C-alpha cells in the first residue's frame, strides 16, 4: 500500500463536478442548463462557485441561446444538458456553428447509454458531425476538468462552439482530480459585426465557407492535439478508443497498444494510419454507434475480424474483453428467481392520487417526462404514451383529431415540463379549436432530477427570490377558458373536475397542485391504519400501489389482509378515501 498522502489540492469529484470545476477555473462568467440526468449536477456545482452566474433555463434551447449570447459578448460561457436536451437545443447549436463565438462556448452533452434514466440512448457524437464543431470525449473526472478548460481555449482559437460529450459512467463516477486556480477573464461586451452574427442567407453562405475551412484547420490540429496520443504496448494488438471505453480497454488489455482519442471530431487521419501500420490487429472499441469505426473504415484502414459490437446498451469491462478476445474467468450468473425492485412513486405522492382518479375514469393518458411516468407500472398502469418533454399535449390533441372524441383522453404533464415545452402545444390546441383536457401535475419542483427550482417555483438556481410564474395565468392567457386548480389528495373534487373537463366541448386545464412529498418531509402528518373489524379484504387499497400499504395476506387465503407501515405512511389519506368500507382510519396519537 502506498503511504504517500494525496496532494492537498486534490479532490474526489464526479465527472459532472469536474466539468463544473473546469468551467470555474477557465473563468466562465455564465453557465446555464435545464436539469436532466446525468447532467444536472454540473450546474448545481456551479451555483456554489463565486464570480459567475449559474442559472436554470426553462429548456435546453433557451440555455444554449443564453450561453451563446454571453459568448458573443465576449464571456466564456457553458450550457449543459442531457443527450435528449441537445435535440431541443439543436436548432441553436447548428447555426451557432456558423456565427462562431467571441468568448469560449462549451456545450456539454451528457449521454445515457443503457438508458438508466432516459427515453432513448442516442449517440450525440453525431451532433458534432452535423454541426461541424469539435468534439471532446473525456474518460474520467481529471480529463473531464482538463477537457472543459481546453474546450474553452479551442472554442476561442477556432471561433467555434465546442461539444463536450460525457456519458452516465463518466458523469456519475468519482475519481481524483487535481484542482487549479480560477483565471479571471473579463468580457469586452457585444460589438456589432452583422456579417458574423446576423445569419441571413447572404451572410450565412460566407460563414459556411468559413466553417468548412475551420474544419480543415481543426483536422490538422487533431494530428498533434495532446488529447490524441498513442500508448505503446506489446505491439501486436492496437485499439482505437475514446471516452469511458478507454478505461475498460486498459482494464482488460493493459498491454495492448492504444490510440486514445480525446478530440474525436474531426479525426486525426494521419495519426490513425500511422497507428494502424504499427500494429498487427487493429480494433475500434466504442459505446453505442460506430462513430469512429465508420470513419476509420471509410479511410480504407483495415480492422481485425472481431465479434460484432453491440450497438445497444452500455459497454462493460466484460463486453470489451469479449470483443478483444481476452479470456477471462467465467463469471457466475445471478439468481433468476428474485423479485424485481423497480422504482415507485413515494408514499404520499400527489401524482399517485391523480393517477388513481384517472384509472377510475378509464381514460387514455397521454403522458410526459417526469416521476409520473412511473404510473405506467402495475398496479396503476395509467400511462398510454410517453415520448419526450412536452409531447403529451400535442399527442393527445392528434389522437383526438382522428378519433373525433375528447371525452376519453387526457394529457398529463408536470409543472416544469409544462414550462419547458408544454405551452406551445397548448396554444396549438386552442388555435385549432381542440377540446383537449390537460392536467398539469404541479408538485412545485423538478422532482425526478433531485428537486431543482424552475420559473414556477419563484426561486432561482442560487435560491434568490424571483417572479413566480403562475401556471393558471399562462393557461388563461393562451385562451383556455376553463382552468381550475385542485388538491389531488381530494379524490372526489379531482374526479369531478376531470370528469367535467372531459365532457366539455372546449379545452380545459386542471392543475393538480400538491407539493412534492419529499420537500414536505418536515411536516409530520399522522399515519393511517387499517381497522381489522371493518376491513372486508377486498384489496382495493392495494390497487393504487402505495409502498406504505403492505399485502400481508397469508398464502392460500382469498381474503386480502393489509397493513399500513406507519414508518412509511405519509398520512395523505388517499387510501382512506379509496376504501369502500371506511376501514382505513387515522391512527390515534401514540399509536
Amino acid at each position, binding site marked *: *500500500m*502506498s*503511504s*504517500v*498522502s*494525496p496532494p492537498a489540492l486534490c479532490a*474526489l469529484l464526479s465527472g459532472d463536478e469536474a466539468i463544473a470545476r473546469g468551467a470555474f477555473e477557465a473563468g466562465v462568467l455564465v453557465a446555464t442548463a435545464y436539469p436532466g*440526468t*446525468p447532467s444536472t449536477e454540473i450546474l448545481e456545482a456551479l451555483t456554489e462557485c463565486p464570480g459567475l452566474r449559474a442559472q436554470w433555463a426553462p429548456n435546453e434551447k433557451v440555455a444554449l441561446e443564453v450561453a451563446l449570447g454571453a459568448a458573443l459578448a465576449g464571456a466564456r460561457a457553458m450550457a449543459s444538458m442531457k443527450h435528449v436536451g441537445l435535440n431541443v437545443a439543436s436548432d441553436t447549436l447548428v447555426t451557432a456553428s456558423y456565427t462562431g463565438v467571441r468568448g469560449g462556448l462549451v456545450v456539454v452533452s451528457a449521454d445515457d447509454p443503457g438508458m*438508466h*434514466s432516459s427515453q432513448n440512448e442516442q449517440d450525440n457524437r453525431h451532433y458534432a458531425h452535423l454541426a461541424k464543431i469539435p468534439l471532446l470525449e473525456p474518460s*474520467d473526472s481529471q480529463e473531464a476538468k482538463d477537457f472543459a478548460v481546453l474546450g474553452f481555449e479551442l472554442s476561442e482559437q477556432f471561433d467555434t462552439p465546442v461539444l463536450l460529450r460525457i456519458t*452516465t*459512467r463518466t458523469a*456519475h*463516477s*468519482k*475519481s*481524483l482530480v487535481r484542482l487549479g486556480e480560477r483565471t479571471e477573464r473579463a468580457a469586452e461586451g457585444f460589438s456589432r459585426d452583422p456579417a458574423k452574427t446576423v445569419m441571413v442567407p447572404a451572410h450565412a453562405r460566407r460563414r459556411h465557407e468559413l466553417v468548412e475551412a475551420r474544419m480543415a484547420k481543426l483536422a490538422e490540429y487533431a494530428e498533434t492535439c495532446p488529447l490524441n496520443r498513442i500508448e505503446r504496448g506489446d505491439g501486436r494488438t492496437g485499439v482505437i478508443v475514446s471516452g*469511458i471505453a478507454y*478505461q*475498460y480497454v*486498459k*482494464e*482488460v488489455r*493493459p498491454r495492448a497498444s492504444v490510440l486514445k482519442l480525446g478530440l474525436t471530431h474531426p479525426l486525426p487521419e494521419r495519426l490513425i494510419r500511422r497507428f494502424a501500420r504499427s500494429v498487427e490487429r487493429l480494433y475500434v472499441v466504442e459505446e453505442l454507434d460506430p462513430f469512429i469505426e465508420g470513419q476509420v473504415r471509410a479511410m480504407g484502414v483495415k480492422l481485425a475480424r472481431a465479434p460484432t459490437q453491440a450497438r445497444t446498451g452500455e459497454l*462493460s*469491462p*466484460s463486453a470489451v*474483453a469479449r470483443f478483444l478476445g481476452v479470456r*477471462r*474467468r467465467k*463469471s*457466475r*450468473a*445471478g*439468481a433468476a*428467481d*428474485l*423479485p*424485481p*425492485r*423497480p*422504482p*415507485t*412513486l*413515494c408514499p404520499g405522492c400527489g401524482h399517485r392520487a391523480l393517477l388513481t382518479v384517472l384509472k377510475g375514469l378509464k381514460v387514455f393518458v397521454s403522458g410526459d417526462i417526469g*416521476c409520473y411516468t*412511473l404510473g405506467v*407500472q*402495475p*398496479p396503476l398502469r395509467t400511462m398510454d404514451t410517453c415520448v419526450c418533454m412536452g409531447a403529451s399535449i400535442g399527442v393527445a390533441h392528434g389522437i383526438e383529431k382522428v378519433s373525433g372524441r375528447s371525452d376519453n383522453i387526457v394529457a398529463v404533464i408536470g409543472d416544469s415540463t409544462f414550462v419547458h415545452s408544454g405551452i406551445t402545444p397548448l396554444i396549438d390546441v386552442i388555435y385549432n379549436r381542440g377540446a383537449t383536457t390537460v392536467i398539469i401535475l404541479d408538485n412545485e419542483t423538478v422532482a*425526478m*432530477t*433531485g428537486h431543482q427550482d424552475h420559473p414556477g417555483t419563484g426561486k432561482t438556481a442560487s435560491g434568490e427570490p424571483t417572479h413566480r410564474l403562475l401556471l393558471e395565468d399562462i393557461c388563461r392567457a393562451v385562451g383556455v377558458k376553463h382552468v381550475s386548480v385542485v388538491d389531488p389528495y381530494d379524490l372526489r373534487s379531482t374526479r369531478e373536475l376531470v370528469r367535467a373537463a372531459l365532457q366539455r366541448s372546449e379545452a380545459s386545464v386542471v392543475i393538480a397542485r400538491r407539493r412534492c412529498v419529499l420537500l414536505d418531509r418536515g411536516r409530520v402528518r399522522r399515519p393511517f391504519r387499517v381497522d381489522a373489524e371493518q376491513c372486508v379484504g377486498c384489496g382495493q387499497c392495494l390497487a393504487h*400501489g402505495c*409502498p406504505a400499504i*403492505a*399485502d400481508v395476506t397469508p398464502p392460500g387465503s382469498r381474503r386480502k389482509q393489509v397493513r399500513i407501515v406507519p414508518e412509511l405512511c405519509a398520512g395523505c389519506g388517499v387510501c382512506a378515501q379509496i376504501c369502500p368500507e371506511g376501514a382505513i382510519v387515522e391512527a390515534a396519537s401514540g399509536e
Partner: protein
Amino acid sequence: MSRITNVAIAGVGGQGIILAGDIVAQAARSAGHDVKKNEVHGMAQRGGAVVSEIRYGKRIYSPLIPDGEVDVLMALELLEGLRHAHRVRAGGMVIANELRLPPAVRVPDSPEYPDDITERLRGAAENVAVVPAAELARRAGNARAANTILIGVLSRFVDLPVDAWKSALRMCLRPSLLEVNLLAFDLGRRRRKTAKR
C-alpha cells in the same frame, strides 16, 4: 503489482447507499490510494434497487467492478445482497444487514420475497456476516446509523488504517451526526463473531 480492492454496496434507494459509498471512497483516498467510485442515480432513487461500487489501489482504470471480482459486498438489505452475491469472487466476503424490505410494489407474477436469503448467501460466498445493524445502531444512539455499523464491520476486512476511516466519517457527515456515527463505527469494528475467517 499492488492489488486492487473492489467493494460493492447494494441496497434500496433512500437507504443512504451513495453516502456510504462516499465514506468508503474517502477512506481509501485518505490512505493514499487511487480511487474510483461509481453508481447510477436518477430514477433509481424512488425506492428502486441501487448499487454503489468503489475500487481502490495503485492505479484504477474501470470505475465498474469487472464481473466476479467483488472482494466485499456490503448489503444494506438482504434481497439486494442476494441480487449481487454472484459477483463476489472466490474467497470474497458478504457483509449483510439482517433487514428484510420487500419491494414496495409487487410486480405481477414475480417471485415471492425469498425466505432463505441468509442460507443462499452462505452458499454464494465463503465468508458471510449477517449483522443486526439497526439494533447495534440503536445501541450507539441512533437507529439511522445502521450503515456506519456495517462500515465498521467492513473496516476489519479491508486493508485501510482506522484513521483513514475516521477522517472519512468526519469529511462526509454533518458535525451533529459525527459523534453517534463514530460510536457506531467502533461498535461495528469491534464486533466479534462477524464471520468465520
